[in-house]
């Protein structure tokens, strides 16, 4: 029976002692994030994010379905996250752990309920046909700060995604393949990002960002802010743990805003790079039969 791996007594005391001296085991400062890597796949809508050793892959897909009867003018948008035994044998398939449930609820609140994606634009024929956008989130390795990593991957994948173009003439709906018409990006309204702060010490006076798995096992409390670059808070999640002072809470929100701005810039830059990589030099260049030989 696989068990959750727990840190030993030595590790517990050492990490606590080091934090009291202002040191982290991986040599970072308290407010320093791990090196971040965002890569897009060859297909549209695939994004992979690495925060140090934490690695998450998000894949977006679209299909035409019937809209919900109570929402005839809205498309369908779902985010499915799965923590598989690939991360650690203690995660079981088809039995969502607490962590998995919290993660999917957080993503749901951050991205779906904050209206980041304009679901009305997914409607094709009111009450009959609409696009169903589905994001599959795969956690490949877990070394702490999963929420932030997952949120970034989902947002980046959705921004990168292109759905097939469609047109309506009278009663007929036509979906074009990518060869017939260039696929179109989703109607995206704002990009919220999750930023998690972890609190250590007896009164939560040490605030750490981007914690590793070892640190996460020892923290006394945690708080996740979902915020976009305009400073609009989508949600704050603090599930139990030690109580926090109000000034600390505000201070963290400011930190979250700065991080969110950085992440927005990063995603924009990476999307621009990716677009440049895909651009073969216009329509004529694509049609030409000339090749390297």
């Amino acid at each position, binding site marked *: 029976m*696989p*068990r959750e*791996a*727990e*840190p*030993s*007594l*030595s*590790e*517990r*005391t*050492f*990490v606590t*002692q*080091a934090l009291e*001296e202002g*040191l982290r*085991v*991986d*040599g970072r400062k308290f407010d320093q994030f791990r090196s971040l890597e965002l890569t897009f796949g060859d297909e549209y809508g695939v994004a992979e994010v690495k925060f140090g050793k934490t690695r998450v892959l998000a894949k977006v897909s679209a299909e035409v379905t019937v809209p919900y009867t109570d929402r005839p003018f809205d498309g369908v948008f779902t985010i499915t996250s799965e923590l598989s035994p690939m991360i*650690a*044998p*203690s995660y079981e398939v088809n039995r969502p752990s607490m962590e998995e449930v919290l993660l999917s609820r957080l993503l749901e609140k951050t991205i779906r309920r904050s209206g980041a994606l304009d679901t009305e634009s997914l409607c094709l024929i009111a009450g009959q046909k609409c696009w169903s956008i589905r994001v599959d989130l795969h956690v490949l390795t877990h070394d702490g700060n999963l929420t932030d990593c997952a949120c970034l991957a989902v947002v980046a994948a959705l921004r990168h995604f292109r759905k097939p173009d469609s047109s309506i003439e009278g009663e007929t709906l036509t979906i074009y393949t990518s060869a017939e018409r260039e696929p179109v990006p989703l109607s995206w309204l704002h990009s919220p990002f999750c930023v998690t702060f972890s609190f250590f010490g007896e009164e939560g006076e040490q605030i750490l960002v981007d914690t590793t798995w070892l640190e996460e096992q020892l923290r006394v409390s945690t708080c996740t802010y979902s915020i976009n670059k305009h400073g609009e808070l989508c949600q704050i999640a603090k599930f139990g743990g030690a109580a926090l002072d109000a000034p600390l809470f505000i201070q963290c929100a400011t930190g979250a805003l700065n991080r969110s701005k950085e992440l927005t810039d990063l995603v924009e830059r990476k999307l621009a790079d990716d677009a440049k990589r895909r651009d073969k030099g216009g329509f004529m260049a694509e049609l030409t039969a000339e090749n390297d030989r």
Partner: protein
Amino acid sequence: MASEAVFVLPGDQIDPSLIPSHPKKALRLGPGLRHVPPNDILPTLAGQLITDRQKNAIRVENAGGRYQPRAGELVIGTVHHSAAEVYYVNLSDYTTPALLPQLSFEGATKKTRPVLAAGALVYARVALANKHMDAELECVSSSTGKSEGLGPLTGGMLFSISLGMARRLMMPKSVLEGKIAVLEELASAGLQFETAAGRNGKFWVDSESVKTVIAVGRAVQETDEKRLDVDAQKKLVRKVIKELS
């Protein structure tokens, strides 16, 4: 030890000249090799093929994988819980614990045995490792009755390293054969620390100062992850020392 180093992939043909042929001793196959009757030997792992002509043994070494206990190896384990006569000790995550009898410590009797809480670290030798049984550990040499450096590890910090790195660190001549210079360099730079390496991919460091522990642990981990050679290790040590001062 004969040191012909050949890289093999699973299913590769092994050059017959690399298979030792001792007139008296039987051929011993180590991990990563499989005997296919009547007389074929096939690698089942990718790694370096090591031939030991004196012991008439042959094996494949690689850096990855999960730790499997083998008798005689030194390991660092975490006490999971204590039962009537034994401690249950975890050697690696998500595997069945090994058993450490409470009396197999130096000078331990029924009345004077060390009390280890859950989560305590022990440096132990694998005494017994059979295929379908839980492994057994000991913290005392059964022949001399001395601890020989084994026993509970108090304080310090535990770092995870790859199995290959652990093997290199524990070589008798780790500088020459294992190409590990980082610890010697750190020590000669004036840092004072104590280390213990376990074959199960654990590396324990203790020192008076927290900074030194972190510096040593990270230097070893970085050497492992980036596969640094001796020169790069020396460079890394210079960087670490500069950051410390």
